[in-house]
């Protein structure tokens, strides 16, 4: 039930897009990604390198004097090693109608909430396309009817989400992946309606002078699964994703004070396990024109806290340290270096992301992730041999 197979996605995209080929505007990119792993894989079916191709076109069309819009953005990836990573999706496919101070949208959409850099706690509308990247910033299109009201005192969004999308995971050949195979077909739901339960979310956001604020409540099925170990005499042990019900209230706040941005994301969640709290808070300080050049260096410091009892992929007591270098040159060269350190175990996730434009329409990106000092009790322990460096070359059109 995990949504779209690549073939189905392609077929659907073609069927939807064919009549639109003449009106509106096309853009998008094709990217070739090459990955090299530093060490030998933990599992025999994994490899120490990978090659993968992604295609992400976007169509949009405005009419009715800008009051109506259609956006269609399919996504397709073909992966050399991992059958599960060869996948497709409709990132966006929606119709939007604007009224005087109201907007209605129907279809698959992508919505981002939040302010912090190291993790995105309050961002809950879309399911993570986890097989794409560990950072959780790739999202699956969420089917919804959304209503936005724009009174003078802020922005109010109501989301009605009639269908749940399961998280994607790397297959057995995929790398990095969790230590046991994931039995996605056996996924369990707390709600008796399974993936057909209607999830709801309400958000208020606005700015007051230097402050940008967002207050939200989500009532539905948790996007993040809890795993139970299942044992099959023939196939051995596997992880079964459990999608529990969740009530989550969130606050995101940013104060923009000159060169310093102060950021807070706070969530209070309630599930079968009781109530828990998670926090990401910190600051970003930008040094401009460093070393007498046009470059800016942003220093990022964030503290992460989570008291959820169930063992999950959470940052329970961590410090995130980072630097973002923007050369402000013609190629828009950028480099983001990051480390999230567990204050208790010193398990560290280090990350580097850089990119630079080549000629007018190409972009070359570098990504590296390193799992340092892994403690056997930490969820990152399973990735201890999966340090990698990845180069991506994208052509934009």
């Amino acid at each position, binding site marked *: 039930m995990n949504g779209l197979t690549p073939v189905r996605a392609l077929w659907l995209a073609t069927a939807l897009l064919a009549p639109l080929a003449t009106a509106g505007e096309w853009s998008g990119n094709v990217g070739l990604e090459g990955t090299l792993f530093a060490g030998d894989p933990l599992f025999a079916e994994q490899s120490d390198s990978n090659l993968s191709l992604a295609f992400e076109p976007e169509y949009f069309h405005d009419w009715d004097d800008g009051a109506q819009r259609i956006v269609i953005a399919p996504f397709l990836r073909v992966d050399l090693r991992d059958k599960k990573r060869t996948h497709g999706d409709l990132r966006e496919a929606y119709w939007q109608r604007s009224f005087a101070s109201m907007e209605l949208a129907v279809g698959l959409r992508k919505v981002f909430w939040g302010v912090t850099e190291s993790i995105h706690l309050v961002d809950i509308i879309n399911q993570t396309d986890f097989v794409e990247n560990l950072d959780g910033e790739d999202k699956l299109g969420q089917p919804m009817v959304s209503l936005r009201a724009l009174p003078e005192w802020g922005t109010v969004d109501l989301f009605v989400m009639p269908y749940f999308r399961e998280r994607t995971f790397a297959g057995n050949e995929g790398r990095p992946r969790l230590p046991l195979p994931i039995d996605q077909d056996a996924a369990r739901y707390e709600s008796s309606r399974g993936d057909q339960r209607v999830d709801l979310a309400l958000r208020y956001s606005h700015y007051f002078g230097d402050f940008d604020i967002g207050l939200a409540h989500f009532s539905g099925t948790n996007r993040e699964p809890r795993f139970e170990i299942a044992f099959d005499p023939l196939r051995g042990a596997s992880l079964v994703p459990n999608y529990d019900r969740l009530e989550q209230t969130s606050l995101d706040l940013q104060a923009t004070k000159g060169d310093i941005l102060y950021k807070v994301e706070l969530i209070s969640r309630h599930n079968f396990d009781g109530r828990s709290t998670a926090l990401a808070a910190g600051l970003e300080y930008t040094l401009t024109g460093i070393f007498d050049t046009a470059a800016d260096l942003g220093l990022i410091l964030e503290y992460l806290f989570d008291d959820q009892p169930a063992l999950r992929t959470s940052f329970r007591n961590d410090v995130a340290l980072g630097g973002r270098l923007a050369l402000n040159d*013609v190629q828009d060269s950028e480099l983001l270096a990051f480390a999230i350190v567990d204050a208790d175990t010193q398990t560290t996730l280090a990350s580097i992301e850089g990119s630079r434009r080549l000629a007018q329409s190409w972009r070359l990106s570098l990504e590296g992730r390193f799992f340092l000092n892994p403690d056997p009790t930490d969820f990152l322990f399973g990735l201890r041999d999966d340090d990698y460096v990845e180069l991506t070359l994208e052509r*934009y059109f």
Partner: protein
Amino acid sequence: MNHRLSDRTRRVGAAAKRSAFFVLATAIVLSANIALAQTPEQRGLEIAMEADRRDEGFGDSQVTMRMTLRNKNGDERSRQMRSQSLEVADDGDKSLIVFNDPADVKGTALLTFSHKEGADDQWLFLPALKRVKRISSSNKSGPFVGSEFAYEDLSSQEVEKYRYKYLRDESFDGRDHFVIERYPVDKKSGYTRQVVWLDTQHYRVFKVEFYDRKKSLLKTLVSSDHKQYKDKFWRPGVMEMTNHQTGKSTRLEFFEYEFQTGLDEADFTRNSLSKAR
């Protein structure tokens, strides 16, 4: 073209000679008056206020811009963007810029609420993540999309953002100009002073020299191809910024200027930023 221009210059020259005596006499009387009534600082402020007054009431405007970035070897890169502006009574203008090219930044948009005093408010929309991000506006001296234009060169030029001093009158290209100096009030500015040439007839800026924090000449901006819209508002068709210290230059061309198109506050919000194309 050149010939006709020089012809006209000659005719103007002859006319000027004929009335030279009156001009001289008037100038003496005037300068005596000015000396009594006005300091160069007051005169400079007066010119800046008059330039500002002549642009009042533009309401809103929209324009497509093409930027050509040239390095000292002559290699060129281009940028294309669409800009909308809204005049705000008693405060700085609001603006929304959407990038179209290069393709990898297509859909990226920048919303600015400029203020007469204090820091501007700025939000950036990142289309890949669908993220609206409030950003620090204190880096006004930084380059705009890798060009020779700094953010502060392109932001709404409010009278209150500078102190002024009148220097002299100067004629070139068949026009008379006021030459004034202005000093940024904001300590974050990348400049210690700017020398501005405005024509005496319409108060249009034709040239600006920018002096960096070390007080040496950094850049020169030359504006040309001015056109008048709605019988009132003058806008340059081309702005050419040359960096004397790096040898790089940026040419900014404006296309399809439109005024009073009916934009209002609702077109300059975080919501409109996230929908901008």
